[in-house]
């Protein structure tokens, strides 16, 4: 009877190791996949911005500096690589867009512009998609990091050299009411 205790214990430990390893790998892959989803949505935003600037350029012709700043921030964001860099670049883009939308309020012509209204729906859905993709990503990052830090899975995580994933923060301007209301009141 006693002779079986040691082998049974070994088998149990091996099974636990395998299970924990697989869970960590699955979580890491989910985090990576969620990041790719954010990337898709950010690209959608980048594609939309030239269109936005073209639509408002005629009306907002005295705001060239702001429009140029938006385009530059957009190009910088499109070039950014990796979570940390994208974080900074997207925050810059959000701030530039925020200034543009604030100025747009002074132009009632935009409110009756059919193009601007359609564009508003596109911008709203894009901002929501980014927010939801970020929400999913951050939830997964939290689960992955928690698994790496808590006993006993932290032992396996250290053994496989797992690195904590980086959260994707919301820009400070985005956290308040975002202003995507250039056309409709």
């Amino acid at each position, binding site marked *: 009877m006693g002779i079986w205790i040691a082998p049974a214990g070994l088998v149990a430990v091996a099974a636990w190791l395998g299970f924990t390893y697989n869970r960590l790998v699955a979580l890491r892959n989910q985090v990576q996949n969620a990041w790719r989803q954010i990337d898709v949505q950010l690209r959608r935003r980048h594609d939309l911005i030239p269109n936005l600037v073209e639509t408002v350029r005629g009306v907002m012709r005295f705001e060239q500096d702001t429009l140029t700043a938006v385009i530059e921030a957009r190009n910088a964001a499109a070039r950014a690589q990796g979570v940390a860099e994208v974080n900074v670049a997207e925050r810059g883009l959000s701030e530039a867009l925020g200034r543009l939308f604030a100025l747009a309020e002074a132009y009632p012509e935009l409110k009756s512009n059919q193009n601007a209204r359609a564009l*508003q*729906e596109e911008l*709203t859905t894009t901002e*929501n998609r980014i927010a939801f993709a970020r929400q*999913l990503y951050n939830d997964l990052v939290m689960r992955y990091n928690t698994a790496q830090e808590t006993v006993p899975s932290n032992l396996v995580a250290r053994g496989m050299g797992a690195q904590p994933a980086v959260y994707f923060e919301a820009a400070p301007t985005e956290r308040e009411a975002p202003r*995507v209301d250039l056309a409709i009141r």
Partner: protein
Amino acid sequence: MDLYAQQVRNRRLTWLLFIGFALLLGAVGLVADAALGTGGTFWLGGRAWPLPLFTALAVASATLAASGTYLAGDRVVLATMRARPLDPARPAERMLGNVVEEVAIAAGLPAPAAFVAPEPAPNALATGRSPERASIVVTEGLLGAMTRAELAAVVAHEMGHVRNADIRLMTTVAVLLGSIALLCDVLLRARVLGTGDRRRRGTFAALAVIAAVVAPLIARLMALALSRTREFEADRTAAELTRDPLALARALAKLGANEVPVRRGGPQVAPLFIVAPRLRGDTARRDVFRLFATHPPLAERIARLEAMGYARAERREDVAPAHP
């Protein structure tokens, strides 16, 4: 509840429904065979085998209905609602398409196909057999009544049914319920034929008993299968996805205030809807379905949503009303 446990339970209940349905049809066939003496024989391997004609027919049609429900149950529901694909030229429907994709991103699932039903009563439903093959139907009445955030909340509730694997079970219930209602009608009308000799009268009386007693009993079992916790769970999932339980509370309040009855769908599709629809008229079938209370009281659902901790929403949809 544990997501996996709910999926296992849903699968088991679906099987139970199919078996119950087959037994019901089998009972009808057996009564008919015994009374009418239609048990024929056929020859196989030099031996005579009994062939209960109506029983065989009943079992065959039960199998057919079950596999049809699995393969095309969602299409039956979509056709019943006269659901049509979105028209991107209409701003409200374009917005619905966007909202469905947004909520799918939040859930980390493929976006379901979105449909609009030409129905003035505000309501919504989800159908399908897996997250990969799911459909969400929104009535025109709902599209006209909700803000963007409320629409997202309703869609997220339906996405909850998709994610929690409720849709296949609910679709099965809707389609089998429709079949049973049809069977009831046929059997109750068949009684008129039973005016001949005593034996035939007896048979049709027995069939009428099945129609009047057993079928509603099965329907009641189905209602129990769709326990009310399902709706609470979907509400909770919606709050988790949108982080905005108050938007769903507002949407439910609007749906509760509705007085317009549904035109299509009727009682069979009722368990699929986000809130129990108002039914029109007083058909005989309606009494059978009154046994159901598939949806918990709206006031309780709203109270639970309002109590949820996510009250500080991060969302931004309410910037624009759906219909400016």
